């Protein structure tokens, strides 16, 4: 990471890996990571809800851990590996976690959904299989105002169990596979 100035504003250079691609960018030091992902890289699936680290809308995975990207500066991504919601689906197929959310009706307006998906993704990297109560605690850093959480907890539980839900429709031909954390 190097610093330089353009006009009167200090600029910082960073190199980071986002969704498997190396990115080099020059940014103002006050640009936070969520704004960087959204407005510089066009990864608008990462949402912003409070910019105080309270709501969890902007949660992404950095070096395998769930991070609220509104509390990180873009320049802090230098040398690190970032995963956003856009990394989950492959072509036309939803990732098993996304499919579990769809099958369980775990989203309504969908604004918080990327935050929950990335929180759960990081939880999956931990390797253990959490109980429902543990899932509730683990996802308590992301707020949802639509669902009452019950179906989000079920979706994550089902994903860990690696089972597709009975009766899950497949009207869009988008998936329905079994699968759990990678």
């Amino acid at each position, binding site marked *: 990471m190097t610093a330089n100035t353009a006009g009167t504003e200090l600029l910082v250079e960073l190199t980071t890996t986002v969704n498997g691609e190396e990115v080099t960018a020059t940014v103002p030091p006050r640009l936070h990571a969520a704004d960087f992902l959204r407005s510089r890289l066009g990864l608008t699936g990462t949402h912003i809800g409070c910019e105080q680290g309270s709501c969890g809308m902007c949660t992404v995975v950095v070096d395998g851990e769930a991070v609220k990207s509104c509390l990180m500066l873009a320049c802090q991504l230098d040398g690190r590996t970032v995963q956003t919601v856009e990394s989950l689906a492959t072509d036309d197929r939803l990732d098993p976690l996304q499919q579990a959310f769809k099958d369980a009706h775990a*989203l309504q*307006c969908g604004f918080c959904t990327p935050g929950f998906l990335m929180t759960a993704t990081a939880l999956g990297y931990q390797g253990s299989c959490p109980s429902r109560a543990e899932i509730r605690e683990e996802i308590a850093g992301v707020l949802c105002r639509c669902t009452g959480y019950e179906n989000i907890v079920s979706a994550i539980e089902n994903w860990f169990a690696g089972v597709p839900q009975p*009766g899950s429709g497949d009207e869009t031909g988008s998936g329905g596979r079994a699968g759990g954390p990678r």
Partner: protein
Amino acid sequence: MTTLDRPVAVDTAPAASRGVIGSSVTRKEDDRLLRGDGRFTDDVEPAYLLHMAVGRCPYPHARIVRVDASRAWTLDGVKHVLVGTDVRAATEPLTVLRPVPGAPSLPYYALAQDVATHEGQPVVSVAATSRHVAEDALELIDIEYEPLPHVVDVLAALEPDAPVLHPSVLDSNLLAANSDGSGDPERRMLEADVVVEGRFRINRVTALPMETRAVVAEWRPGARELTVHISSQVPHLIRKQLAETLRLTESEVRAVASDVGGGFGLKLGVFPEDVLACLHAMALRRPVKWVEDRAEHFRASTHARESVHDYRIAADATGRILAMTDVYATDIGGWNSPFGSAQLSSVVLNGPYRVEDGYAERRVTLTNKTPVGAYRGYGQPEVNFAYERLMDTLARRLDIDPVELRAQNMVKQQDLPWKNPTGAVYDSGDYERCLRMAAEAIGWSAHRTAGRVPRADGRIAGIGFSSFVERTGYASARFLARRGSQFGAHESVTLRANRSGGIDVYTGVSTMGQSAETAFAQVVSEVFGIDYTAVTVHAGDTGASPLNTGAFASRTMIAAAGALREAAEELAAKTVRLAAARLEIDAAHLEIAGSVVRRRDDATVGVPLAEVFTTAITGQGIPPGEDPGLESTSHFEPSDAAYSFGTAAALVSVDPGTGEFDVERFVMVHDAGTVVNPTIVEGQVRGALAQGFGAALSEELRYDGDTGQLVNGSMLDYFVPTAADLPPIELLHTEVASPVTPFGIRGVGEAGTIPPGAAVANAICDALADYGVALSSLPITPEAVWRALADQAASGTPDEHLTPTPGDLPDGGVGY
């Protein structure tokens, strides 16, 4: 009692369901949202975009003496600055969509003129090359304020010595008082064996959608075309209001609400910042974006619910209710927001209980606080807390089982439809059945028999109930006209066949989590016979949808289902006629099935829908007498509002030493009429319950009386429930079809917000009955319970209460 000459409701058997109505197909909306591919307003990023930031009044009440923006104009990147006089010159005052009957209009501009009446009211705005620069520029604007005396308490605001917020049009802070009622409730009070009464304080809360408000405005002067992407529940009403305020014709305004990250009533109508973004864009000929930050959201969107209810119930010695009255002051804040404060407390004054003598008087009160607007439930949770707390008080006073007292007084199924004292017509339902189901599920009789025996750890368990009705939809455009509302009771859709063999549905209802795309496609699939997957819903664009009303008041499906049915029937009839000509088979022998039109008695004989649709679209090969094209637009208004209903029961254990309590079980029995999609309905009920629990147990916006400042305006200090906070919830449903709506559907979006407060409070008061605890305020916190334990005298009957305004009550009021 008023029994109307109407067809009586059908029995409780589920309405016969064909096709996909009644099935839990997965949602149309999900794939894009799961992939991070939704298009929320902040995701719209046109070329040459500028960003807006808004400077706001830091005082609850202040005169704006001087504004000097000269230094801001000199900052590199600043393109435009607006001050109050600019807005006054270029716009009309913001309009109100749902006026308070009898209230004068308050001249509310997008920027404060001489006086600001609440903390957070916009005073200046800047458009610049980035949000950072725009916010830097705000720091350079010099504003001199003269703080004025303020009032934030709703009852204090009605006192004669209170500072008056709008002295140019009002002598006091009473914006208007609205009375509705029937019979002679005061006489019944005198005749009654028992009268219970209480003052119930309802907390100020906010909807807090996860996506804040947002707007992107683009102006093409040569085309005279203002395109506004906006996070709104009502794009067609946005278009109306922006045209009025900006002195444009509606032809010149297009409003687009793509994906909306939650609304809950908060995103109804035009806010000041929407106008400001348009003004900047029109001045600069460049697109301008504003995304509300969360600190702004807490101060400049709308709040909800705050009110003080003085409620009375009169009964005879057997427990029969003789009269119910509610005089309540509802806080509207510093201005009249597009929807203003709630009136549904008056509409469902008596809940599910039969009473002939009753009235409600609403006193709409101005205070130096953020304006109040609609929020899921909108008056119904508030009044439910009052009457359901008093039902338990009455049961205890008369030593009657509270379940039996409720059952005894509920409107009976055979008496429906029935008109309540404020003019609401309850359409159909079996209220007592829901109550009995809840009582059984929660184990009421065993609890009642066992009594309040402390557990080994000293905690005492209590059970509380809350029974409710919920008005869904509106009682016709005639009703809305009497209230001065600036919108209709109908919904409208356009259905258009395409050459791929699919049907496109165009609606002005924006997508905000309510699953309208899915439910609309289900109705089209059901009625037309086409595959669910072949129906695509295009939502929320005024440039591509018929004029409609919008997504609020639990009314979308009960109105839209009718429009969808009519349009689909018309389209299906023509499709079959065209296929009949093509196949040279009588239309009576044909049916639409999935992707083909085929013989009813021989599925091998048919023609693909894609072929029939192409024939219609090109007009090549259509029979004589048929017009080309395959498109249908329908508008539908239900004959009346439909009333959902239910009962919730809470099992709560309380520590009588500390007041700490735990909601161990919560049972919700609910009826939403015919269910289009059970999974979605359950999701709506659960989501509303979560918001209901937040308002009941943890959410409260507090203002400091001395400074008039909102003291907890951040997500760090305002506690919405997380996944770890909610109690176990058990859902049970009944399904009584409504006779007043298509397919018998009742609205479902709001019911869950209603019963949590009263059910939990009643459970705690049941557990602590031997301690004389009577809760009368929301939210219910362990501290509130502890204080009630410590000071029993402080709860219960108030020393003073709001007396009704003298004068005769209109019989039934203007009616609901």
